[in-house]
């Protein structure tokens, strides 16, 4: 069982909604579609489900071409961001409905419904109507309906986005377990890099309808193929500064220099863009191997034990995430330090030229 997308694309009203995409989702894998809003996660998912027909390209399931097959005849299940259940039916009937349509016998349906309800901890709510449940329970009901028919492909479109923090954490922790038990191909769309890292598996990063990279989640995170992927796969977004290499010297943003050793040594001389994540900026220096930037401090946001710094460096706007609570005056100039080992170097086209030293080592 594998889902293959072969140069699948979709054009709506002359606009390229999904650029030609080739992906292979293997049996029993968790695949995360990561991208900001409107990056095409839902569109790509609808193509996988068969709700939309691709403008070009083929879809293969288990080697068989399913490009034009009706959604009713595909073995897929889908859960939406909104809690979609059949409001007129009880939770039990909601979960049972896909099985009834498959013509299973009563005892078998009952067993499957109760087992699935047990797994999702909604056994006590089986007799109630979906709208009488809390948001988390409604989404559990929708998940149960998606899982009960044992579809080969389960599509989850930001299933936790409409839940409050607590319920979200709770359900997110359960999803890998549910996935393990089902053995299906899971596709999980999210806007949050953190969620992708927690779920593991594979990640495809999306940007403006294009899959920029697809691979094992830690690899995509540590070795983004290009600047776009790096921006999508970090929260807050990756900070960028122009840099150039000249002999044995790397210059960042005109003023800060560092020796071009390690991975940088192999780079030819020239102009590049350096990228680094917010949590790699520090307010003080620990070792000599750091680069100092003088930045104008905009706003600071204190979230409990961490502080977000909104900085302006030349024409670039950066975000720094530092530990501890810092009482800094907005509008003043501050020094931030960066370890060059945490810097990714991208070439003029945005492709990764040299990964950060720490990531290459990991």
């Amino acid at each position: 069982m594998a889902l293959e997308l072969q140069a699948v694309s979709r054009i709506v009203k002359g606009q390229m909604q999904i650029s030609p995409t080739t992906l292979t989702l293997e049996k029993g894998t968790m695949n995360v579609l990561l991208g900001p809003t409107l990056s095409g996660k839902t569109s790509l998912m609808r193509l996988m489900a068969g709700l939309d027909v691709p403008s070009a390209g083929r879809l293969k399931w288990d080697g068989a071409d399913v490009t034009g097959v009706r959604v009713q005849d595909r073995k897929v299940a889908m859960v939406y961001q909104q809690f979609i259940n059949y409001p007129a039916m009880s939770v039990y009937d909601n979960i049972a409905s896909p099985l009834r349509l498959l013509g299973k016998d009563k005892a078998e349906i009952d067993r499957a419904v109760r087992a699935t309800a047990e797994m999702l901890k909604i056994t006590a709510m089986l007799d109630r109507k979906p709208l009488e449940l809390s948001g988390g329970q409604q989404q559990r009901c929708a998940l149960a309906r998606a899982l009960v028919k044992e579809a080969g492909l389960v599509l989850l479109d930001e299933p936790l986005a409409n839940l409050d923090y607590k319920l979200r954490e709770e359900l997110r922790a359960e999803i890998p377990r549910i996935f393990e038990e089902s053995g299906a191909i899971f596709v999980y769309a999210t806007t949050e890099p953190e969620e992708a890292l927690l779920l593991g598996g594979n990640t495809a990063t999306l940007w403006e309808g294009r899959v920029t990279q697809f691979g094992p989640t830690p690899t995509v995170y540590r070795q983004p193929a290009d600047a776009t992927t790096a921006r999508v796969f970090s929260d807050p977004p990756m900070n960028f500064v122009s840099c150039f290499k000249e002999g044995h010297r790397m210059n960042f943003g005109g003023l800060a220099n560092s020796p071009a050793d390690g991975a940088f040594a192999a780079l030819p001389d020239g102009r590049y863009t350096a990228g680094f994540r917010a949590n790699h900026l520090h307010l003080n220096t620990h070792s000599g191997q750091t680069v100092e930037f003088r930045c104008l401090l905009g706003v600071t946001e204190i979230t409990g034990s961490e502080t977000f710094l909104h900085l302006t460096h030349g024409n670039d706007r950066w975000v720094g995430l530092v530990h501890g609570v810092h009482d800094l005056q907005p509008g003043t100039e501050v020094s931030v330090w960066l370890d060059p080992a945490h810097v990714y170097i991208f070439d003029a086209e945005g492709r990764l030229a040299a990964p950060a030293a720490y990531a290459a080592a990991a």
Partner: protein
Amino acid sequence: MRLRGSALVMTLYLLFLLVPIYWLVNMSFKTNTEITSTFTLFPNSFTLRNYVVILTDPSWYMGYVNSIIYVTMNVVISLTVALPAAYAFSRYTFMGDKHLFFWLLTNRMAPPAVFALPFFQLYSSVGLFDTHIAVALAHCLFNVPLAVWILEGFMRGVPKEIDETAYIDGYSFPRFFIKIFMPLIASGIGVAAFFCFMFSWVELLLSRTLTSVNAKPIAATMTRTVSASGMDWGVLAAAGVLTIVPGALVIWFVRNYIAKGFALGRV
């Protein structure tokens, strides 16, 4: 004091509203002599004769039967046609959909009288004159657009994802529509049915023009009141009371949804 003031206003309001209806009921239990000769707030010589006349004379009670037949036919036809139409308007975009949707409403801008002559001519020439279906079809011209408008509003309130989830679950379109979708907009269907009923039940001009004997509606029967023995006031009043009853019954059933229906489902 404020409470008593508002109670007074409310009492007066109800009094004014109910006076004509009370007078109708009052009259229906009087004899013709009492109606024409004296002014009494209560029937002095209480009689059920007027009701007996209506319920035993076929030329009276068949009026009710005819009305009920063509109203029912009309409600069924209107809803059967309007449900798929409203679904299409709420779910798909097609060329001219917005104009077509507005055009539906313009049908209601003309008074029924405008259509009396063409309908009469048309139905006579195809042999539908004086049949129930003729009146039912004629009323569709007004009721189908209204039903489409009401239902479309309710359907728009149902997220499209429910449709898709049902397809993914394996529902075919007809099965989804009947088993999943219609229960969701049940109140909308009820409101649309009520509005169709109300129009068709009270409409007089077309139903009178298109019928003579076999499908003559009660409202038309009531206009033919002067008989050889003069005006039969009491029977006429009783007929009026009986005409109000079905409407009152239907209102009772859909009273909780009416306000929503007037908003055409748009909250």
